């Protein structure tokens, strides 16, 4: 009975958070002299208004799904893997490197693509293990280490694009020379969506869900995240577990980078990570690290990103509105969660 009641309390608080976020965004819209309902209608229409548009949402969804899934692992271990942006980037760099190496090798394209995905995972995992090593052996907080490594990753990308990997003729902001069509993940005709990318994303989530929920590893990882000292005292090799969390997350981030290269941009571009790492952090916070919520919430965020494209076209509105709404959602969820805990604690007393 009480359990049921607190569940309802939770839901109403979450509902209130959504309303507050909408309210906040609406007020901002009103202040900027824009018609809020029309803006929302355009976002909805622009994201799920047609099958084509929804397929665009799915294109943006897969990398977000992968990064958020990866972050579930590090969050479970109590780690803030801010370095995920760099891990996506390194994944993309490794994938590009492998494709460049093998594109004229005569190997079957399918095999090259599989190798490219694995290379991406390796790149992300290596970069994450750097942040992990800095944390576990160097005592550098993973937030600072990760941020620093993000900068290095971006600098490395730019250097490659304008230096060793520049196009024949002219170094271009538009990235490296695009790969031939047979090295693209096959797309559903008439769309930009690769069903393979979607499958990879869902499998990744399923695997992580099972690992976190149903395995001994997941259980111990959770213990490390909840209380690292006592975990250590009861004999869990905490450093090794934290490193594993970094590496797993990095591999998934790298896979997201590989998808960006093989399924979305078909080359290495300056901002290949597209901010999916930071967006993934928002989603992970919003869902309070519940694996099953990753799918709908990241889908919702991707839909906001794609839907908001209509705002400048139709309403001459700044499309960063979607970012405002995303940020507001996270803020108000965290805030309402704080309020809820306070209220519940009072109620218990």
């Amino acid at each position, binding site marked *: 009975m009480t359990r049921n009641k607190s569940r309802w309390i939770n839901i109403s608080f979450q509902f209130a958070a959504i309303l*507050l976020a909408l309210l906040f965004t609406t007020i901002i819209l009103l202040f900027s002299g824009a018609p809020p309902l029309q803006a929302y209608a355009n976002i909805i229409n622009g994201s799920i208004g047609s099958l084509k548009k929804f397929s665009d949402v799915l294109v943006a969804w897969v990398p977000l799904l992968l990064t958020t899934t990866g972050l579930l692992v590090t969050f479970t271990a109590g780690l803030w893997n801010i370095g995920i942006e760099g891990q996506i980037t390194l994944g993309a760099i490794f994938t590009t490197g492998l494709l460049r190496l093998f594109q004229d090798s005569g190997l079957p394209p399918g095999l090259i693509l599989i190798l490219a995905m694995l290379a991406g995972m390796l790149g992300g995992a290596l970069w994450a293990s750097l942040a992990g090593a800095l944390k576990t052996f160097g005592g550098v907080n993973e937030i600072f280490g990760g941020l620093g490594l993000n900068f290095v990753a971006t600098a490395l990308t730019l250097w490659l694009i304008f230096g060793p990997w520049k196009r024949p003729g*002219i*170094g271009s*902001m538009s990235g490296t020379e695009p790969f031939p069509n047979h090295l693209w993940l096959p797309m559903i005709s008439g769309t*930009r969506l690769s069903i393979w990318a979607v499958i990879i994303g869902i499998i990744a989530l399923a695997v992580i869900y099972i690992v976190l929920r149903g395995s001994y590893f997941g259980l111990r990882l959770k213990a490390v995240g909840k209380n690292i000292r006592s975990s250590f005292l009861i004999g869990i090799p905490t450093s090794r577990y934290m490193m594993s969390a970094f590496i797993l997350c990095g591999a998934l981030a790298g896979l997201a980078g590989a998808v960006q290269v093989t399924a979305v941009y078909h080359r290495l571009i300056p901002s290949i990570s597209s901010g999916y790492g930071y967006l993934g952090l928002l989603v992970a916070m919003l869902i309070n690290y519940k694996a099953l919520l990753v799918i709908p919430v990241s889908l919702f965020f991707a839909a906001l990103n794609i839907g908001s494209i209509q705002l400048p076209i139709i309403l001459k509105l700044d499309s960063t509105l979607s970012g405002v709404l995303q940020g507001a959602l996270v803020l108000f969820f965290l805030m309402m969660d704080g309020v809820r805990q306070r209220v519940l604690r009072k*109620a218990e007393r």
Partner: protein
Amino acid sequence: MKSKTLWILTSLLIVASLILAACGGGATEEPVATEPAAEEPTAPAAEAFKFGMLLVGPYNDHGWSQAHYDAGLYIQEKLPGSEMIYIDKVNPADRAGTTPAQLAEELLAQGAKVIIFNSDDMKDSALEFAQAHPDLPVIHASGDSAWTEGKDFRDLPMLANIMGRMEYGKMIAGCAAALTTQTGKIGYLGPLINDETRRLAASAYLGARYCWQNYLGKDPAELGFKVTWIGFWFNIPGVTSDPTQVADDFYNSGYDVVLSGIDTTEALVEAKKLKDAGQTVWAIPYDYKGSCEEATDVCLGVPYFNWGPAYLRYITAAQSGTWQAAWEWNSPDWADINNPDTSAVGFIKGAALSADASTKLDEFIGALAGGLNLWTGPINLQDGTAYLQEAQVATDQEVWYLPQLLEGMEGQSVSE
């Protein structure tokens, strides 16, 4: 009891939100009431000739993108019945998971009859889109894919490339710098290194050297001209060199004029700061007509792009069905380089330019108008190899694809 207060609190919040949301909606109830709100405005404007623009930066960036946006407004004004639709911040950092080609499709779906891609970033997308729509007029600004003699020619029937000959703007800027410097040292704040940025920095140097020699009668060997590349078109903390820092280093090591080759105005802002602190320094921004306004008392002038006239010609051609693929590299209108209706490139003098320098600068502009070509040999590349022989005039290719900086310029020539 406690849970009752909780419920009251929650309900109050919800009610308050609903009321506010309803108020918010009130003003706009009407347009939304008609279900297909999105189509509504497009229906009556069916006769309007829509052209779509993809802007790499914010439409109001006081730089590259705004110069294009303003050109769109210019067309709307000059070509009755035309209407610009645009998407700005078209770059993967701002619009995750999208490509310019995909966004061009959105503009097409909204009725655009011409699509303009405004940046080098969008090269592949512009080509992909032009290939997918062989009957639709497409402009890729700054590109070279439609140049039959270019290194990267693609035979696409409706693709046009447009670019202004900013080389002249940069020569004028370089001249203004040379006429003003008291230390004889000019700094050039460069973005990233590619053919375009190299030829622009080199043009600034050629202008500076010419005026230094011919109007001031000084030895070119005594003119310092240093290029420092920050690594990108604007500052990315932790990735590029900080342009403010680079400008500061220039000013504090004897370079009293800094020319900006980047999209943002750090050099100007830094000059202003130092001037207020008592130093004698100047700056020359880039790209956008109104840039000097940020700090008039240190600004020697600004070379800027004026995309309006060329775009107007092309949109008009698209409307009348006479569109042709072409590569255009447009010169200033030498009768009046600041004529908004005719000149592709201009230079607006800044308040900090002295009267004497201004007179000489006019003389220089007059000489350019009269046919003076600074891309005439002998010109050596930075490493000393001869690029143009005595009296040899550079071809467009030799300027466009300049492989190195020039002899006499200090700074990196290629990304290593």
